[in-house]
């Protein structure tokens, strides 16, 4: 379970997130939608402290992951990032073999037991619905996979280190419809075990895959509710205008 409380976030002077409180439940897919630049990615990246990498940013408010205040001094960022997997817009496999890509997260965490690693790799690839397609070419370069397969590989890579949360920033926006639908299927099947948050530009996608939807605008969380409710009868005028395509 992850939670944000009264978050304000600044890029230098720019106030990117304004007083956002939001709680995402386990075994649930939460979609974040909103116009470009409204702060969805910024919000998502709070939860694995990816924003720390950008200089000149400032955070007010608190974030919890599984009950831990992740911006507390005592928190080890690398450990946090193991708990909170992340999948990016473009598939980003490492220039290694398929196997090594998935094993990467285990290795950097000091695991050396070969049998254990092989087993986790298989489990993760199965979890990402990719095992059958790659089991005969684990030693091949990850770049030999198609875009959609690469993205599932990246998901498998995250699964390998047993996160409890999966953050996805437009995971299918660079893919064709067929790969997209496979990723959506996958997300659906993964929610059984993880807290999933997905940023998407594609409202159809939000409506198809998510249980809850949060609508952001200009750094504010306008509405957060069941996806059905948002898409059938949103409470806020702004949400309605956005999802029905009546902008500005």
């Amino acid at each position: 379970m992850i939670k944000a409380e009264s978050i304000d976030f600044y890029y230098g002077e720019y106030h990117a997130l304004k007083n956002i409180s939001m709680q995402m439940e386990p075994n649930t897919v939460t979609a974040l939608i909103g116009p470009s630049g409204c702060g969805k990615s910024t919000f998502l990246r709070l939860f694995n402290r990816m924003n720390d990498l950008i200089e000149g940013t400032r955070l007010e408010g608190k974030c919890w992951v599984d009950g831990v205040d992740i911006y507390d001094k005592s928190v080890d960022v690398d450990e946090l990032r193991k708990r909170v997997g992340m999948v990016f817009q473009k598939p980003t496999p490492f220039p290694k073999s398929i196997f090594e890509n998935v094993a990467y997260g285990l290795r950097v965490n000091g695991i050396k037991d070969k049998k254990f690693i092989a087993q986790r790799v298989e489990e993760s690839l199965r979890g990402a619905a990719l095992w059958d397609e790659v089991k005969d070419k684990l030693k091949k370069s990850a770049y030999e996979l198609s875009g959609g397969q690469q993205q599932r590989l990246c998901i498998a890579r995250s699964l390998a280190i047993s996160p409890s949360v999966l953050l996805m920033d437009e995971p299918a926006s660079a893919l064709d419809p067929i790969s997209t639908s496979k990723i959506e299927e996958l997300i659906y099947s993964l929610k059984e075990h993880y807290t999933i948050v997905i940023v998407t530009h594609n409202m159809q996608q939000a409506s198809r895959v998510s249980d809850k939807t949060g609508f952001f605008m200009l750094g504010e969380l306008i509405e957060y509710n069941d996806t059905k409710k948002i898409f059938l009868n949103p409470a806020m005028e702004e949400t309605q205008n956005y999802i029905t395509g009546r902008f500005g």
Partner: protein
Amino acid sequence: MERELANIKDTVNEMWRLVISQLEKAKQSFLTGDVDLGHEVMSRERRINAYELKIDSDCENYIALFAPVAVDLRLVLSLIKISNTLERIGDFANGVAIHVVKDDCIAFTKALSEELRMEELFDVLLRMLTDSFVLLQSENTQLVGRILAQDDTVDQIYDDSIEVLSNYLANHTDQTPCGLKTLLLIRKLERIGDHCSNIVEEIVFYVDAKVLKHGGKTVPLDRESKE
């Protein structure tokens, strides 16, 4: 996108006005026994059917092509149901016209019409139909109560009419067939009231996303509790 939806709504409005005018004319022809008017109503019945088909297909296209959500989706789904209902109402108006044109029982019905409060019934129905038209245009849900109240009047008149008819037929056994036909006629008018209520429910669903149907409350399904 909004243009398309507005077009559909325009078509529904046209249909609605046509249905009102059909009912109006049916009433006229019934009250004045004007057979020509009855024929006119009957000939225009097919236009109502055409409207229904057109609206149905426009709405289907609209959903297929534009994937509406939220208020747009509710509107288009409501419009489908409203046009179906309007078509039924048109059917009933047509039934009245046929009753007039067939001429075999019209004298019987007219004789009793005072006692059966036929004119009042027509007026109430026309008011309901017009009111719900206004409701859709204005989206002012305060009208809802008034319209639904009128349906009670309709039901009252209908219930009464059965008694009136029984009493009358008991004394005029030779006119039994006409009595039966008149009953069916009034029954049709009563259904118009019901249908108007349905339309109102649809509009409320569209405007507020509230489900009024079946009193909004029903026993929960087992399946639902399972899920």
